[in-house]
């Protein structure tokens, strides 16, 4: 069985979007800074499943090459799905996407749709994604889903792309997790130009 892994770019002060985020400005004020490292390197890296091409450093590209093929399914949220415009029907990594939502968008209920809409909660979505992924890993791609997975004990690993900036305000990644300390084990540090890739294992045994 694969792992459930969260991946996100975060500022040193813990934000994953700048202040005043919304549907029109999903990254908030100045939040685009968090993704600069995706476009600042000299290696062309096509984002699997999409038409996007990143330009990353050699170290980041190597990390992508190792990590991305390990993902067999993605769990995401409805807000991200809407903001991304359903990725034009070509979601990242070209793997099945499980979208946690209250209402199902009818236009994507068609044969061959890469999207499965899950209306009975995050745990159900993760379960379905794990089945679809088989031996591969499940990626969790939004902060709020990550927080819910964390609280339900479903999260195995956290990948933080730590970006050298202080946003000063915005959407905090590690929020709503309660006030009890949560132990992590740092399992990898990859130093790359403009970003530090940190991997943590969630310590579950007490």
């Amino acid at each position, binding site marked *: 069985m694969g792992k459930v892994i969260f991946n996100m770019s975060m500022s040193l002060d813990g934000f994953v979007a700048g*202040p005043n985020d919304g549907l029109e400005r999903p990254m908030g004020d100045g939040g685009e800074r968090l993704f600069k490292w995706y476009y600042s390197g000299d290696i062309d890296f096509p984002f699997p499943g999409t038409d996007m091409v990143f330009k990353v450093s050699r170290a980041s590209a190597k990390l992508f090459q190792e990590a991305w093929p390990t993902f067999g399914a993605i769990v995401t949220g409805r807000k991200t799905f809407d903001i991304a415009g359903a990725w034009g029907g070509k979601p990242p990594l070209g793997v099945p996407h499980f979208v946690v939502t209250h209402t199902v968008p009818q236009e994507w209920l068609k044969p061959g749709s890469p999207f499965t809409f899950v209306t009975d909660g995050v745990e159900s979505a993760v379960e379905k994604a794990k089945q679809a992924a088989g031996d591969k890993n499940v990626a969790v791609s939004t902060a709020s889903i990550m927080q819910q997975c964390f609280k339900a004990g479903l999260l195995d690993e956290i990948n933080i792309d730590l970006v050298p900036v*202080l946003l*000063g305000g915005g959407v905090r990644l590690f929020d709503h997790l309660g006030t*009890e300390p949560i132990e992590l084990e740092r399992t990898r540090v990859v130093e790359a130009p403009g970003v*530090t890739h940190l991997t943590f294992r969630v310590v579950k045994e007490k």
Partner: protein
Amino acid sequence: MGKVIAEFTMSLDGFIAGPNDEVNRIFGWYSSGDTDFPVPSSTMVFKLARASADLLRESWGTLGAIVTGRRDFDVSDAWGGTPPLGVPIFIVTHSIPQEWAKEGSPFTFVTDGVESALAQAKASAGDKDVGIGGTKITQQGLQAGYVDEIQIHLVPVLLGAGIRLFDHLEDEQIALEKIRVIDAPDVTHLRYRVVK
């Protein structure tokens, strides 16, 4: 002229102490290694990973003075009467604690603000760097532009609550440049230059 350096141990979720000033968990890396590291001008001996010991020896060796806040002074109980690292320490406060306002006191109390404390510390440090402690002083320093570098000892734990280092920065983006990352067993040492 030396640099002004803010140095903190911080949890991955951004706290430098718990809700009641607890630091036991995040300071675990000071005692989890196998290299003895005597703390300058103190009887304390840390047990550090070798990489952490090398880093502290180098970065603390450049400090010529420290500026911190009254809360830090009070919470540490005046560091047992001996200023940390054996360098002059300037404490920003509204009122001077009388028991320490004596001839030969190892502490200098500054009642006319952070910038004054910093100027005095810089004069005292000469060519060496000035370390700053205290979250408020760091936050004011980041906003006023007088912090040159940030050294974070990032600890793999989520505290969930407590005292945040990067708080009250009023939605203002501050650019950093990563200078160095050192991977030690229980902590990741991150050093940044503040881009001005």
